[in-house]
């Protein structure tokens, strides 16, 4: 029980970036435990030959091409065989479905929303709880399943692992229909916010649909676009295409002007801006921890003045 396993996330037959981040961490942890970094990948026609780790368990089958209830069954079998000390998964839609399940089934303690992990006799992890307002150091007895936030670890790039390729029949698992994949849905996009150099991004603090226009005007004046955090999309004040974060887009603008955004970790996962400037009435809002410049002031007091002043400059 020295190995460090990574649940590789594959969507549309593509290995997701988070898997390389987890493998980077797995190699580091395995060098401390004296074990191997092991990748567990389930899919169909996926090239796993250069994954950066020591061993890849690759279970290939037509039925595993897209995520379904078979994945959790296969994973459970393989994890029992590998018997790792640590299992790393992404704190993502697929990662949480899989890891939460196998942790209980195999009776391994679990820590989620993590950005740090270390091993000694036990497993230690740091979790970004309470929307990023607090950190929690957790100790997991002997072994642990760690769900890590995107962007927490440095990605490893390439390797030449030993690949153990298996089929469903090799491991004695039959197809089932508990959860069947039907299709992918790609929402129509009015705009690709990840392509803009300036984003004026609004959060719950924008208060209502009627205030969106001011933020839009400000974005236009700065030559950018408007984006948002999840609550704004949930309330249908802006379309889904504008959402930044875990479920939305990852953006890399020169300027990310965050207006009334608290900065929960699921939002910050998508913000890779060069300069974050935040305006929020709550001085403890986590958004200020990733901002270069901040102002603790009501956005409604400052936006109209800002718009007028920029207009003056432009004239």
């Amino acid at each position: 029980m020295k190995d460090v396993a990574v649940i590789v996330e594959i969507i549309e037959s593509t290995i997701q970036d988070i898997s390389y981040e987890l493998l980077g961490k797995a190699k580091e942890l395995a060098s401390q435990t004296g074990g191997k970094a092991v990748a567990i990948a389930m899919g169909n026609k996926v090239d796993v030959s250069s994954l950066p780790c020591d061993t890849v368990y690759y279970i290939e089958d037509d039925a595993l091409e897209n995520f379904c209830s078979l994945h959790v069954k296969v994973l459970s079998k393989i994890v029992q065989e590998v018997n790792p000390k640590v299992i790393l998964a992404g704190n993502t839609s697929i990662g949480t479905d899989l890891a939460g399940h196998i942790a209980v089934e195999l009776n391994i303690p679990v820590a989620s929303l993590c950005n740090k992990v270390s091993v000694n006799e036990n497993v230690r992890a740091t979790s970004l709880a309470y929307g990023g307002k607090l950190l929690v150091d957790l100790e997991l007895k002997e072994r642990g399943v760690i769900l890590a936030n995107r962007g927490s670890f440095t990605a490893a790039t390439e390797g030449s692992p030993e690949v153990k390729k298996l089929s469903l029949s090799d491991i004695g698992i039959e197809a089932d229909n508990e959860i069947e994949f039907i299709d992918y849905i790609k929402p129509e996009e009015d705009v690709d916010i990840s392509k803009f150099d300036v984003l004026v991004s609004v959060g719950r603090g924008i208060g209502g649909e009627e205030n969106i226009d001011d933020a839009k005007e400000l974005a236009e004046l700065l030559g950018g676009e408007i984006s948002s955090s999840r609550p704004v999309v949930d309330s249908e004040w802006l379309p889904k295409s504008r959402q930044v974060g875990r479920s939305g887009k990852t953006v890399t603008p020169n300027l990310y002007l965050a207006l009334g955004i608290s900065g929960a970790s699921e939002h910050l996962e998508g913000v890779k801006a060069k300069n974050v400037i935040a305006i929020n009435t709550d001085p403890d809002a986590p958004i200020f921890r990733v901002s270069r410049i901040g102002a603790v002031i009501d956005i409604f007091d400052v936006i109209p003045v800002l718009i007028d002043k920029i207009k003056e400059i432009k004239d």
Partner: protein
Amino acid sequence: MKICAILRTVPDLVEEIEVIDDEIEPFAYIANERDEHAVEEAVILKERYGGSVDVIGIVDEDSEEEIEEPLAMALAKGADRAIKLTMSNKSYRRIEQAKALAEYFKDKDYDLILTGIQGIDAFTGMLGPMLSVYMELPFTGYVTSVEAEDGTVKVQKELGGGLLGEFRVKLPAILGIVSAEKPLRFVPLAKLRQVMKKAEIEEDELEIPEFEGVQVVKYYEPEKPEIVLLEGEPEEVADKLIEAFKEIGVL
């Protein structure tokens, strides 16, 4: 469809949270936002397909009172029953809550159990997937819409980066809701007060087992990196922002 939605309270992040080493004392509790979406989706499904919605509010002795308004809100929106389940002891471990709930759900015969995904206090795992193992039911999370189809539900699940996947899930099942398919409906305060006056909130106890595999070593505030704070009246702040925009090269 016989539906159950799980509603929990979480610390109100707008208020102070006092940290005392391995414990925290929040100043106030509010309904977990994602659970409110689970309740909303449950009511949407009842309106579309008929059936019933039970909402269970899981609380401990500290958050017992704060659940009453969200439970009344669920009744005002169209839930049929509201049940307050008080945990026999305070537990931050999702696995203990999941095991206790699985026991509670025995013989309740729900077709669908909806829970919000990953509350802000979900640092020891997620209730939905854990509950599904103990109940031997299928689970999937990050769900944004549900349609019933002959003993199954067709769900849309967020996969990240704006991509959605469509899946067919055999009933009975547990789903983790990230957003209801429509925005949370507005309940006027007068109506909520009216419901609260005559609401019958049933009460029960949830026997929490012990699982010591994971424990909190300490809670603490993250370090505050250096930041340039712009202070002053709106006029001054706007001037300083413009300077910053110029320096960054966007103006």
